[in-house]
């Protein structure tokens, strides 16, 4: 098993290298001139300024050289500086990523807690009223344009009812807790500052809830479908024939089997959320990675784009690995295949 994890992590290296090549090629292929983007049209009209600028950022080197330099720095943990923010990209990522992780984690926890019971109830009551209600609600959740929902929620809960706080991660009067993880909820707990904690939670609630409407819809349907495919299986009849109650049959045997494939969907959804939901982050003034990626793209900020790409690559690979490991923890057949090296 450890060997398996090591192999998977080892595979991360070629994947990331490949991603740098692609990201590098793509970012250089974008027709935007970073010089214009960064210095503005006026400065760009002065050849001397442009030349100095290009030399400073290494843009006057041939492309392969630029790439090699980049990779060399990368190996030292240096993602070079952002053209736009003038700070090291690593530092930028460190400040933007935690916000996204915090939001994504809250969202995925919320929607998993909601959707698993909903999906199970819907499957067990298939075709009757509870099932219909669940299906209708989740359909709405999936179909509703999420930015519209976000705007409507802000309008109702913040502007009219005043029960939700203004956009942002904290009240302007609150100072962020001492930085440990960068996630304010966790950091404030570490600092023992309950007031800041509740403030952070209340700011987190609305965006997480809005994002969860989408993922809850998907997860509920997945849980329901998976349960429906497990419920007719022979081993449940066997469980009943042993004298198990319906409750024990469903919760003790059907659900554990049905939830295994749901893990994949949870993982994928989490990966999606982690790479940022730009619209939500924008509407709720959430300084997350989606936000950062968006600006990097607008300003043709190559180092930032590359940095973001790499981070996304790592996130996807790690999330996938975690999904596989959870799978293995839950399903002995997959575990056996992994240990014997057949996967």
């Amino acid at each position, binding site marked *: 098993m450890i060997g*398996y994890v090591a*192999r998977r992590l080892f595979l991360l290296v070629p994947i990331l290298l490949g991603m740098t090549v692609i990201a590098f090629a793509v970012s250089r292929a974008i027709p935007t001139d970073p010089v214009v983007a960064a210095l503005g049209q006026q400065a760009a009209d002065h050849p001397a300024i442009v030349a100095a600028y290009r030399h400073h950022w290494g843009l006057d080197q041939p492309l392969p050289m630029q790439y090699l330099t980049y990779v060399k720095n990368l190996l030292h943990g240096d993602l070079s500086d952002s053209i736009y923010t003038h700070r090291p990209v690593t530092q930028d990522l460190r400040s933007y990523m935690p916000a996204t992780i915090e939001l994504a984690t809250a969202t995925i926890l919320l929607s998993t807690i909601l959707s698993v019971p909903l999906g199970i109830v819907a499957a067990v009551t298939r075709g009757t009223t509870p099932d219909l209600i669940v299906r209708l609600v989740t359909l709405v959740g999936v179909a509703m344009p999420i930015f519209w929902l976000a705007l409507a929620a802000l309008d109702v809960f913040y502007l009219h009812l005043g029960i939700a706080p203004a956009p942002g991660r904290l009240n302007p009067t609150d100072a962020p807790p001492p930085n440990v993880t960068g996630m304010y909820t966790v950091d404030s707990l570490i600092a023992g500052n309950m007031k800041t904690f509740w403030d952070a939670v209340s700011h987190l609630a609305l965006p997480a809830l809005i994002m969860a409407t989408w993922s809850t819809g998907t997860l509920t349907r997945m849980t329901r479908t998976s349960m429906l495919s497990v419920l*007719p*299986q*022979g*081993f449940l*009849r*066997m*469980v*009943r*024939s*042993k*004298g*198990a*109650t*319906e409750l*024990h049959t469903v919760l003790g*045997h059907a659900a*554990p*089997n049905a939830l*295994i494939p749901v893990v994949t969907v949870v993982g994928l959804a989490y990966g999606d959320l982690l790479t940022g939901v730009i619209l939500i982050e924008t509407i709720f003034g959430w300084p997350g990675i989606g936000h950062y990626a968006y600006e990097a793209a607008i300003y043709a900020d190559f180092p930032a784009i590359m940095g973001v790409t790499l981070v996304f690559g790592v996130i996807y690979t790690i999330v996938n690995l975690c999904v596989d490991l959870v799978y293995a923890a*839950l*399903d*002995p*057949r997959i575990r*056996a295949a992994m240990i*014997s*090296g*057949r*996967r």
Partner: protein
Amino acid sequence: MNGGRTGDLLVVNDLHVAVGGGAGAIEVVRGVSFRLGSGEVLGLVGESGSGKTMTVSAIPRLLPSGAKVTGGTVCFKGEDLLGVPRQRLSEVRGKEISMVFQDSLTSLDPIMRVGPQVREPLVLHRLAGRRAATLTAQQELHRLGIPDPGRAMMRYPHEFSGGMRQRAVIATALIAAPPLVIADEPTTALDATVQAQILDLLGRLNRELGVAVILISHDLAVVSEISKTVAVMYAGRFVEFGPTRDLLAQPRHPYTRALLQSMPSPDVPKTRRLAAIPGEPPLAGALPSGCPFHPRCPYAAEICRSAEPPLEPVGHSLVSCWFAKDGSLPAAPKETVTSTVRVLAPDVSETVEPESPAPDAILSLEHVTRHFLMPNRLPFTAPAHVHALDDVSLTVRRGQVLGIAGESGCGKTTLGRCALRLLDVDSGRIRFMGRDITRTGGEDLRQLRRYMQPIFQDPYASLNPRSPIGDSVGEPLIAFGVAHDERKRRVREVLDFVGLGARYAAHLPHELSGGQRQRVGIARAIALNPELIVADEPISALDVSVQAQIINLFKDMQREFHLALIFISHDLRVVRHLSTHIAIMFLGQVVEHGPSEVVCSRPLHPYTAALLSSVPAVLGAAPRERIVLSGDPPSPSAPPSGCRFRTRCRFAQAVCAQTPPELHEVEAGRAVACHFPLSGGG
């Protein structure tokens, strides 16, 4: 309604079960009644769709969703289970009545260790604490012959072989010591030698613990092994119900009689066609009027078409037939509709055995070896080899039928596919009509296919669902450029031959029954007049009453076309009846080979003997000593050293573990791979 005599454990009275609701409801059980006393064994026999599984599922109310009881009572110890609340039902299930289902793989929770599943009934019924339940479960597994039960408890179902799983399921059913166990086809998915073990076990449990058993099977022979009484079901009702001995010795219902006669058995001369039951079992939704058996019954008279006969006592049995009263059925049924129309004097006892010199060898395999690699997705791990075929040499001559028998995983299917060059061999040589075809490829290979044809277990998979039967049969003819008119004529001819008639040419595959589709598969194989046909389990998927028809068809085909046939089957009864020569395979090797009658009556290899003795016999005529092999076939990826059979062999000696026995000729045309072959007779 009626409580039942004292001593009656279970009284089922006029049980009706329907599938679907409202106007579309189809009755699948139409009034079944029986009593079962404590410690008795009832065998329930019927083909698929006869309602046998529905009948027994209704007893602990475990019918599949969509099916429900529409009438009758099920009194267990005087309590009508159909009326009790769910709560009470879960008290009865597992503790009073438990079930063993057919497919042990799907009977166990795949992600739960075996131990907790086996002890679950005790825990659910609060008969023991977890720890005590675990101990009991271990003892139970031990009693059922699972080696190292402590470790077995910690394993997952997929790590068990089929036989082990079925034993675990039986252990679960027995752990709470219920007075009644219902076993629904408990051995159908298992290999012959394992089937023998399980039946043995059920019989022993009944004798030693006094557990009452309802045993369901499609195979009358299996049921008759351990049941005192047998009920034969047809179209949702009992048609004959009585003491096993009477029912087998003197079947009163034409269906029972026909079932018995249609079974291939050593007593039926090879040259005779089996007394096949014409037609197919009816669908529950479209039962014929009157007696549902009348379209297939050789005795059917006017009254049979209009009124359904009641189940009435005849002798010691209950029989549902208008003519079942003693003596009113003619003793020997007249030969009725046979599947083929051509005149083929059915009893000319000319064997296909040696014509003057040895007939031409059509196909020979010489030292053929084929390994498989387990698929392997990651680098840095060693792939596992499976020896599917290991140094196999066999020859089949014109006019011969070479039967290949063995249990699952013995390599018989791989052998068939290599013979047809559908799979490449790793080493060895394949000769076809004198030519080395081991490495033939491309157009040459395509041309060869004209002379060698496959017949598969499920012809449906190989038929294009959207093209009419006629086109499917004519397809190989097109491929080899047979002109249009000639093709039409030939398609008509072969469809006629297989007993379908030319009018079926326009039908689509899904409009045909399983038996009819297999006829199409045969028609397609013979359309090009091939020299060699390889049939892989061609009758295993068919209903019992249809199997005999197809076996007959194979016999006819052999007589008519005089080709070389390789017939692969796990069912030794069929192989023995059909083939002139037999090769017995074990773990990728041929362990015994020779003329089939000689091999079957005087087996030399201990495995052949065990396989033969595991064939359930209908009329326990001569009570034989059954050789029950212990354990399961070893894994083909890690065969034992020396003789691969040694882990299950009673005669194994030290030398068997060191030196693999060579397949050597012991008498003319007879070879065996064993250091200590049995002496004749046994």
